[in-house]
């Protein structure tokens, strides 16, 4: 019995000491994808503003959504998520309205970045990076692809050497686009058609890959991959023969945004962080470091032309990007997408 009592006491003490450690620290917590900002950016932010901050990492939008929905966002202050998820977090009332007075650097944004349809006027989110989804390929091993069908129905030489994104929205988008439908389609027969196309495409796919496709291009495991433009640049950096192209049918545009959780206890500091990211100087540093386009006009206009030449998709203008359709949350139709994707991934 004594043993049990002391055991219980120890457990409580340990718990208490840990929680003390975590509540005591008044730190701004920022969750982002691994490698999606310069590694020492938060350190620099701390030094320059005197605000204590730390970074949490999430591997996917889905992961951070699961955690934020279950925990009501407690503990997190700033989140980086893609645009459809901004819409959901807002509808679920988990993110705060932004106070633009605290973010004077919004003046650095392109005017178009204020008119994004998932959050007009950037009421609850600030765009961090944007771009398009397309094909990333080895120009030394194949001719330039022109159509989504080059990916979905590859010629014999490419069979088993292409990869596709596995995240449900982007996987379905490839199917919809090849058929000329909207990437936000809620029409059951269109969903069924896209599913059929993607099912037959599966036979010639090496793997579904959201994160290491560029490494597969570099090593030669794959010749063409379904990719986000910024991430394709990681491949180009290692092998200049790796190029990016948007298929002639068009594509979607993505926006990765910053939001502040409603439960944040450090909203002022969170605004200061967003403002910091949107400054011209930091904006330039981000583009040079992560090789993604940002909606920061002041920063984009001061990027070294040699950089733009080495990574041509960085030079894409806001109008070119905005020509593409933006992903929206699907509401109830999400169920149908998930089921279609399950069916595709489970088919032989």
């Amino acid at each position, binding site marked *: *019995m004594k043993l*049990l009592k002391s*055991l*219980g006491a120890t457990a409580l003490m340990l718990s208490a000491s840990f929680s003390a450690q975590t509540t005591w620290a008044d730190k701004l917590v920022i969750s982002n994808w691994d490698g999606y900002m310069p590694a020492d950016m938060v350190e620099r932010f701390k030094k320059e503003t005197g605000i204590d901050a730390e970074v949490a990492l999430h591997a*996917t939008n*889905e*992961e951070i*959504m*699961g955690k934020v*929905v279950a925990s009501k966002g407690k503990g997190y202050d700033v989140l980086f998520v893609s645009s459809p998820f901004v819409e*959901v977090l807002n*509808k*679920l009332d988990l993110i705060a309205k932004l106070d633009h007075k605290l973010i004077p650097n919004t003046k650095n944004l392109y005017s178009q970045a204020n008119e994004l349809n998932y959050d007009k006027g950037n009421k609850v989110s600030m765009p961090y990076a944007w771009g398009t989804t397309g094909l990333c390929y080895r120009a030394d091993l194949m001719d330039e692809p022109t159509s989504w069908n080059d990916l979905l129905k590859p010629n014999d030489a490419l069979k*088993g050497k292409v*990869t596709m994104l*596995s*995240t*449900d929205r982007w996987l379905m988008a490839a199917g919809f686009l090849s058929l000329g439908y909207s990437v936000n389609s809620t029409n059951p027969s269109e969903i069924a058609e896209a599913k059929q196309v993607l099912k037959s495409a*599966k036979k010639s*796919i*090496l*793997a*579904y*890959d959201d994160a290491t496709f560029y490494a597969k291009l570099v*090593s*030669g*495991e794959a010749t063409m991959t379904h990719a986000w433009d910024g991430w394709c640049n990681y491949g180009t950096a290692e092998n200049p023969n790796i190029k990016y192209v948007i298929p002639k049918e068009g594509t979607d545009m993505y926006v990765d945004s910053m939001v502040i959780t409603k439960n944040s206890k450090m909203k002022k500091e969170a605004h200061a962080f967003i403002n910091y990211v949107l400054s011209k100087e930091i904006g330039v540093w981000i583009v040079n470091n992560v090789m993604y386009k940002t909606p920061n006009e002041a920063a984009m206009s001061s990027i070294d032309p040699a950089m733009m030449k080495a990574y041509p998709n960085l030079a894409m203008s806001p109008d070119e990007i905005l020509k593409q359709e933006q992903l929206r*949350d699907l*509401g*109830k139709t*999400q*169920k149908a*997408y*998930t*089921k279609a*994707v*399950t*069916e595709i*991934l*489970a088919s032989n």
Partner: protein
Amino acid sequence: MRSSSRNMLLIAPGLGWLALFMVIPCVLIFMLSFFERGMYGGVDYNFNLENFVRAMDPIYLGILLDSIYIAGTATIVAILLAYPAAYAISLSPRKKQTTYLFFIMLPFWSNYLIRTYAWIVLLNREGLINNGLESIGVISEPLNLLYNEFAVITGLVYNYLPFVVLAIYSSISKLNPEVREASEDLGAPAWKTFLRVTLPLTAPGVAAGAVFVFVLSIGNFITPDLLGGGRLQMVGNLIYDQFLSARDWPFGATLSFILIGIMMMLLFAQAVIVNRGQIEKHEAKEEDVSSMNFSRQSLNEKEKSYA
């Protein structure tokens, strides 16, 4: 009476922990099975059984069967690899057995993700195996070894094999060598002795190892994700996707509920096998005239039923 209250005291803290941190949270989640996903991924609290109807869709049944097939194959391969290894260890000199076992278990204590990652390095099209085979001229085009069922099964077997060897070894080492010798003295060929005497008596170890591999394989989603390249869906992935991609907690809860039900049945089946093994052993002890009698008798009986 005193001892039964003492038993309660022994089990109370552990059970209390499980009740507080498993039963209550999980019951709360499983109750969601009877509700519906809300418009934006929350929960609409109107009671219905629709999720159970959805779960009967042939797609999900197909994924369950695929998972059973993959987990089952991994289990069989693991046992075929583990049994002779465990047997070989049990035949080696006593002193060396601990060392041999130690080196079987060693890899098991390193990180699961890293062990899985090692197979990506080995199996990919530009990986070590393909490059090796190409350089010695066995193949001219790289083989697709990664991102398929083969890779997933290899990964599962690799990760769980040590534990299976251990489970089988502990059964074999408890075996009285006289039983085997008696059977051989009676002129039974070695393979017959093995099939009729050794194998049945070591069934509990095999069952424990098999259940371990099967249970951990079927709910696994990391191995299909990393080694299957997303081309394979197992129940684990399906449930993971419902909770995270679809943000459909009610349906995710329903699917998990069904999976847990199926696995419980399997575990009870294993418990029955183990208990039967135990009873046989007790009987053998009670015969007391040494295990020879037992084996002779059972051999005779089995010979009869064979004829």
